[in-house]
């Protein structure tokens, strides 16, 4: 692993260097004391991961990572900032995959770097890594943006309504989850469902996020019909997943996984990539670079070609996500997997199709009315 640390405070770099040096990791680590020096290092050899301070004289962290995004998109970009500032966290989301706050111990960095190494190994296709590096966010649908904005200015709205609206837009949901999993907001366990994320972030942060999302309003793909159809299917998949997991503790996670499952497909369309057979991998890789919890990443990776796992709770989640996404997209389920499900398969498929028919009917009524 080729790692580049950037901080204008030399003693911070020395501290990091010392802890890493003693542990003797198999990493090639470089240290830059300014954005300009970091760019020079990247020009010499692009690192696998860049971990930068946010506020620095001259070129600050956001501007540095913006350049890295454009010139070396396959580098994983991380902000490590002492400024526990909400606005800055949100600003960093534009250019950084992940956001950590100082003080940050070696084990956190170790996990991050090892995680990045694993992702790299999994993604053998270097060109795909480079492409995914360019993706930052999906354009948010104008309708959900406007609805949410309207809701937030209505007196007496509650968190439940906000959550419901966010769950109706894949890109919004992805952004909300990303923010909730940044070190600034994350408490202990990573968050893998929209509802918990909204509660954790609070409404004022959601409001700020909405403003940032609006920056994407000029994206030419906002009203793209293919994206709109995929968004619609994602919402249906999420409703089906909730129905299949009704009354179980995994319901919220399954809902979120089904909603985000096709994020790879959407991005590949958005960036005009023709091969979509690896979309599940692309989506999982992207969510992983955004620091999403492993369970969610795994569900997205497996949703297209599910593997039978021994862990019963995880198996239920995989099953619900797979069936929900297939039924919502009117695609065939994995026949081998259905065989392993045995006689439960028909019941689950039936329930899923019934749920889809109901939501389509309701949507039809609303559109006519």
């Amino acid at each position: 692993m080729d790692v580049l640390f950037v901080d204008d405070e030399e003693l911070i770099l020395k501290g990091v260097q010392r802890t890493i040096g003693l542990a003797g990791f198999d990493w090639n680590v470089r240290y830059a004391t300014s954005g300009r020096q970091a760019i020079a290092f990247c020009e010499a050899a692009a690192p696998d991961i860049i971990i930068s301070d946010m506020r620095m004289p001259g070129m600050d962290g956001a501007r540095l990572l913006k350049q890295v995004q454009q010139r070396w998109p396959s580098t994983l970009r991380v902000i490590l900032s002492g400024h526990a500032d909400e606005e800055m966290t949100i600003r960093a989301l534009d250019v950084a995959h992940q956001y950590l706050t100082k003080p940050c111990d070696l084990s956190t960095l170790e996990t991050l770097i090892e995680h990045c190494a694993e992702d790299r190994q999994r993604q053998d296709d270097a060109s795909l890594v480079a492409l995914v590096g360019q993706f930052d966010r999906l354009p948010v649908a104008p309708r959900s943006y406007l609805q949410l904005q309207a809701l937030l200015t209505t007196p007496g709205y509650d968190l439940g309504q906000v959550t419901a609206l966010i769950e109706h837009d894949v890109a919004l949901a992805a952004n909300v989850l990303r923010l909730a999993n940044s070190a600034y907001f994350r408490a202990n366990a990573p968050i893998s469902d929209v509802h918990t994320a909204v509660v954790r972030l609070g409404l004022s942060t959601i409001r700020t996020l909405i403003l940032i999302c609006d920056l994407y309003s000029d994206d030419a793909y906002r009203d793209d019909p293919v994206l709109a159809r995929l968004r619609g299917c994602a919402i249906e998949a999420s409703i089906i997943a909730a129905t299949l997991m009704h009354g179980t503790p995994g319901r919220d996670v399954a809902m979120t996984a089904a909603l985000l499952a096709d994020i790879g497909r959407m991005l590949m369309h958005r960036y005009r990539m023709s091969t979509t057979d690896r979309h599940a991998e692309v989506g999982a890789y992207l969510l992983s670079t955004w620091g999403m919890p492993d369970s969610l990443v795994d569900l997205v990776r497996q949703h297209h070609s599910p593997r039978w796992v021994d862990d019963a709770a995880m198996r239920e989640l995989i099953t619900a996500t797979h069936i929900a996404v297939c039924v919502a997209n009117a695609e065939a389920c994995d026949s081998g997997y259905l065989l392993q499900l045995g006689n439960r398969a028909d019941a689950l498929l039936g329930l899923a199709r019934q749920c889809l028919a109901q939501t389509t009917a309701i949507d039809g009524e609303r559109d006519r009315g």
Partner: protein
Amino acid sequence: MPATFDSPLSAAPDPVDADDEGGGASIDDQRQQLLSVIHAMVGQPVPPPQTARLDEAAFLAQMLSMVRQVQPLALHSQKLEAIGQLAAGIAHEINTPIQFISDNVAFLKQAFMLLDPRADGGSTVNERQLRYAREQIPLAFEQTIEGLQRVILIVSAMKRLSHASNGQRDSVDMIDIINTTSVVSRNEWKYVADMQIDVTPQMPPVPCIRDDIYSVLLNIIINAAHAIASQVEAGRYEKGLIQIRARALADCVRITIADNGCGIADTARGRVFEPFYSTKAVGKGTGQGLAIAHSIVVQKHRGRLWFDSAPGEGTSFHIELPLQATSE
């Protein structure tokens, strides 16, 4: 005038026809302006007077009483705002040494375990690690101590800053005031500027209200940082310079804060000390900082506050505080 002079509310109403002297519209305009100024001070919309057409005296009386009510509040909230702004920067200033102190202490712990003959880690330790640990341990201690000294410096400066003088005049060491101000404001300027402090070693104590002088200096320094930041953004240079000089003159102490920032435009020059006048972006300044500084130096301390500025080259603010206290 009878005794009703300072209580216009009880003055006999003398209705003014708005159409008189053709000044109706402009008086309404002025009323509107007054309302918006009060609005800015209170921080929330002020309902216009209930009566559709109050006479001038009654209107002014009402406004005056509102202003009197909110004035201490407005000054207080302005002060809190400045402290809040500083607090975020101070947290960052403390966070930085904490980061490398924890890294170094974590390293020292690891190194100790490797070197401790009693610890049962002998099988995993190798020659390289031992050499590295021995070589780095003195440096780790040194830098940990340096970090702790930095934290101590900031914390003690905060302590001095928060040591309220309760509006009481005191004999104050200006060197101390300048150093404290530069430490607590460091995060506001260090990304855009360097700071040079040049003080005559023998400075007579100055009779003044400590809190007030802190807030004057902080305001001017933060303005200097903003003026420099705009030059940095415009690409004039990467880092500017703030110079603070203090000199003892015959009957006063003069402090000069000079920056090489964007300077003050000719058109703004006459309004710099006017309350609510601001050239900064909305949310960046309330336009009260220099007005308050002016009232503190000139009215409360019978001193002088002025500036010279060249647009595009920089601004110097000069503060003179008399060595003999005279009451307000």
